[in-house]
């Protein structure tokens, strides 16, 4: 049973067609990656899935997005997070800069029953990202880029999600932090988290993922297991530097 299926999705920003009917699916417990150059439509597909309201979201012209077999095209974004347990880590992090690290995490429990004791889950986040524990009471604006990215992931986890969507998490990170972050994602996946990862860094993404799709100007040009894509000469040439 597929968890998420995107079928013939056509999406427009105003008059500009951004996706020309793409198909992909994600099975539970998998890491799937969408790779592609700038403007290929990666972020657009994510925004369409998380149902962000206009003006951010593109307009779905035709096609369907199925979550566990049901269409979510009419579902408001708050329900997507609350009931479908699907959380987005947006490009550029979008953390609440004025609030402290801890306040950011507390705010993420917004949709959940407030009677639950969250202390174990906060501890889990701090286990995954020890740097955040050190900076618990700092204003999150003052964190470095990498720490902000950790916070964005931690915050998404605090929504109680079982399906994590990440939009270019490695952007602007030092190589060491990048590998740290990807190791954490791997660990999350081993604990049962389904992950849809969007990346420009194809090499890194394909080494983490089980399966991948290659997007090019709104169309899927290649798909398959990660090993297969890593071996694909076309992909190699276009995204992996020969």
């Amino acid at each position: 049973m597929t968890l998420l299926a995107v079928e013939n999705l056509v999406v427009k920003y105003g008059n500009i067609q951004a996706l020309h009917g793409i198909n992909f699916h994600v099975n539970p417990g998998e890491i799937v990656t969408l790779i592609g150059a700038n403007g290929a439509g990666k972020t657009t597909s994510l925004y369409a899935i998380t149902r962000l309201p206009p003006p951010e979201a593109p307009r779905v012209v035709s096609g369907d997005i199925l979550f566990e077999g049901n269409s979510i095209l009419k579902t408001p974004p708050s329900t997507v997070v609350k009931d479908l347990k699907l959380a987005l880590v947006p490009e550029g992090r979008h953390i609440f800069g004025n609030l402290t690290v801890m306040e950011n995490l507390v705010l993420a429990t917004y949709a959940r029953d407030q009677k639950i004791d969250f202390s174990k889950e906060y501890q889990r986040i701090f286990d995954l990202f020890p740097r955040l524990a050190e900076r618990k009471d700092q204003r999150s604006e003052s964190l470095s880029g990498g720490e902000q990215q950790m916070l964005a992931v931690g915050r998404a986890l605090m929504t109680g999600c079982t399906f994590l969507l990440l939009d270019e998490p490695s952007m602007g990170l030092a190589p060491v932090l990048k590998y740290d972050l990807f190791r954490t994602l791997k660990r999350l996946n081993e604990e049962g988290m389904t992950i849809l990862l969007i990346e420009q860094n194809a090499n890194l993404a394909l080494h983490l993922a089980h399966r991948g799709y290659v997007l090019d100007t709104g169309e899927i040009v290649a798909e398959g297991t990660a090993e297969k894509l890593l071996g694909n000469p076309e992909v190699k040439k276009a995204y992996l530097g020969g």
Partner: protein
Amino acid sequence: MFRKYTVQLILVTLGGIITYLAYEELIGLYTLSVLMFMGVNIIMSTSLNLVNGNMGEFSCGHAGFMCVGAYVSSLLGVLLFSKDKIFGPPLLNPDLAIYFFPLVIIAGGIAAAFAGLLVALPSYKTRGDYLAIITIAANYIIISSIENLNVIGGSRGFMGMKKVINAMEDIIYLPWMVIWVFVFTVATVWALRRYTSSTFGKGVAAICQDEVAAEIMSVNTNKIKTITFMLSSGLAGIAGGLFAYIIGYVNPGSFNILKSTEALVMVYLGGMGSLSGAVLSAILFTVLLELLRPLQIIKWVVIPLLLIVLMQFRPEGIMGNRELSDIFPRLKRFYKFK
């Protein structure tokens, strides 16, 4: 144990003292009306602070909702409890006014809350400066509609509320207006504190910071915006109702953009997002207006000038976004603002 109720005790004592002084006529009518306007201003500034400070939108048509509340509660009060040349004899026995008065004020608040939808609905898709323009438009729509309703006096205004108050005082002689202004002011501050510290309040803070991030954290931004705008304008409506009954006369001209600006000045003077700041600045602003009264029309040169000085030297307002208990941590033993 005793400490837990300190604030409640202080409030009850304060209310009691003011009521007693008013009852025995130990303080003059002038001082009394300044005190009552202080209460109205506190409601105005704290409720506007919810939208401008906590939610980070810029509403500059707050007086419009005050106008709706003022008119609805005046009309309702006069219709039900007093003989009027437009509405004829009272629908209910004027003796009942004493019980129904708070309900009449609240009805004005509810009507204003629905008028708040005029801003809340466009706010789903509009933000920042564009929403500010919509709030000004809402203010004008409300004023102009009432000016053109000749049945209720149009721009000449509407009066007769004093009779309702007199009917109340005939039953039991107490300074009713003082009591109700005090009660509604305390209730407003309490309600706003509860709201901003609730789960909804977290959603409001999230919208203020980053709307996209709020949305992906499962905050239903449209719902929160609707509730917040309706609460804010509803409270402004209550302020309007009280204002109308204090003066005994309403006309649409007194709820124009200048009145909205006064509310804005109080919010910025107090500090954005600080509830105690909004209360302090409302008190300060009312006193300042009265102190500068001898200057007459020049008052409106001096007060904006003070605003410029304030923005120059302390742009974050008196309190910034802190509460009283952040500045004097000892107060936390008695009361938590957040």
